């Protein structure tokens, strides 16, 4: 049945567009720059989503994480740098991860299930997500991010904590995803 449907739909399309003019795609917009992204702009844009942001030199990442977590146990995906945070025993209430790319203009973090990021659900189920972003992962804009990412990997783009505006358009943070997003930006 499906094979018949496929043929019918393709035939309908071909007869529908017969003689229609070709459309030329002109990309006059700002494309990928290939340049590094602005750390301060990224920090500001992430804060706009009501996420907590820390900008620290790379050498202070471990100390910053220790201070933020204050002994609280976080789930650690495989491949997360152990010199930044070492998994502890017992019940966890949150997750810590790295990322693949970050976008300054939109304040977006992209995870691609690479080392230190875990399967997609790992950064979804906990109510708290702490993400470490390296300065060299920050790109200026969306086209730069698309150019860097690999479509074959499962990707999750995160811009602030989970939110809804479904009730009288009042913004409520945290529905099903983490209610708190905290970001440590490692400079240098």
């Amino acid at each position, binding site marked *: 049945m499906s094979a018949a449907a496929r043929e019918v739909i*393709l035939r309908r399309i071909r007869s529908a567009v017969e003689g229609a003019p070709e459309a030329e795609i002109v990309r006059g917009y700002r494309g990928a720059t290939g340049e590094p992204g602005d750390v301060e702009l990224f920090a500001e844009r992430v804060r706009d989503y009501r996420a907590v942001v820390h900008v620290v030199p790379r050498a202070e990442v471990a100390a910053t994480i220790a201070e933020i977590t204050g002994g609280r146990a976080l789930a650690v995906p495989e491949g997360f740098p152990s010199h930044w945070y070492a998994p502890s025993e017992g019940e966890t209430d949150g997750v810590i991860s790295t990322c693949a790319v970050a976008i300054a203009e939109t304040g977006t973090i992209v995870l691609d299930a690479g080392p230190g990021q875990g399967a*997609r659900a790992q950064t979804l189920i906990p109510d708290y997500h702490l993400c470490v972003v390296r300065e060299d992962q920050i790109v200026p804009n969306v086209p730069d991010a698309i150019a860097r990412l690999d479509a074959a990997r499962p990707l999750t783009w995160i811009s602030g904590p989970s939110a809804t505006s479904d009730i009288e358009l009042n913004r409520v943070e945290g529905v099903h*995803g983490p209610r708190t997003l905290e970001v440590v930006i490692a400079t240098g």
Partner: protein
Amino acid sequence: MSGTFVGMPAFPKNAAKAVQNSQLRFNLRKATHTIRGKRAAVVGELDDWAELREAGKAIKDHTLRNLDRYLLQMEEKVTEAGGTVHWARDAAEANRIVARLVKETGETEVVKVKSMATMEIGLNEALAEEGIEAFETDLAELIVQLGDDFPSHILVPAIHRNRAEIRELFLKKMAGAPKDLTDEPRALAEAARLYLRQRFLEAKVAISGANFMIAETGTLVVLESEGNGRMCLTLPKTLISVVGIEKLLPAWQDLEVFLQLLPRSSTGERMNPYTSMWTGATEGQEFHLVLLDNGRTSVLADKVGRQALRCIRCSACLNVCPVYERAGGHSYGSVYPGPIGAILTPQLRGMDTPLDRSLPYASSLCGACYEVCPVAIDIPSVLVDLRGKARHPRTEKAGMAAAGWVFNRSKRLAKAQRFGGRMRRLVPKRLPGPLSGWTDTRDLPDIPAESFRDWWVREGGADGRRPAVPPVGNLPQESRKK
């Protein structure tokens, strides 16, 4: 579970009723004006918005022109990545495919991510008939589903409900809702979070739509805010995505355009909280893609109307539409309300019912929708074109033919004007019978004693003289009230 739109009266009747609902008008006004402002602010941030819009339009037009080729490429890439592709000519076929796939898993419950396509084909009702219960997980969709209600906005389907109504609904219909539930949005969202969390963790099958499909890579893209999408897309063992064939984009690079156009036009954010992208069977899942036609190919065959298929469902056109703001989404009798619905619904469903025939008229043709559309759909032009195609009442046709006959010759017009001028005191303020539809909401223009053309000739204007200012009696301000 939620009702159907079948048998709804025509738009003017629905709208007349809706404008009497002051709560609805208040909700709609507040909502549309808020999003409108946010959209304008974030669109203004991008200097290259016009170029992005132009590229978005061209990419979609190019895709539609070569849709057969890109669909085949999509099928190939998804299959390569371990997914299974199904083709559905219409709603019934799509529903049969999904029901069969769910049954093959042995499950009787599925979780759903908000999807216009599955709403369009009435999937939930079709699954219910097969003994499968579908749980909507988007907060607004949940509100609509629990209320056995219709969505009234593409982005905020429960825009017509206020917090007190939602609280009532949750207490009555949502199992396990706390007895002391307040009507604070935060408390209501928390109640939904708890209610759905168990479902997410237990669900074995999820059904989604998609905002975009990338032919080059076989990737599907879903944009959302709450995280219910991520839950549905990652946790269940089996994922079934029902996607309209027009959602395709040729290349991975094309996303750089649409991931800027859509969030800014839709929620007025620089980026929506969550976007998920996956290619084929991911992280051990089983993945099915159902490609849906359901009228899209007939829209594609229409030279003027086919541009409606560029739509990325952002709802910016609803938020700026003066008609939508007052009439509300339900008046349009379709899952696609507002200006885009007024051109999409009659094309997808045909214009066989009075409702669908009335939709191209649900507009003042002000053009605000065209201006904000991120893919430059010229909605006013399509509306006018559809008006020409709609069946018109015989009396209207006769009236137009008579008017055409008079206007076609200047002598006939002059005679008619002189006759009208003589009879002007006899013309009623309200027209009788079916013509009263016009005068109920409009004043008839005053008929002057002498037409401009007659006055021009009498004053010698035709002989090259410069006529004096016309007597007051000939000016339109001189009304019959005097």
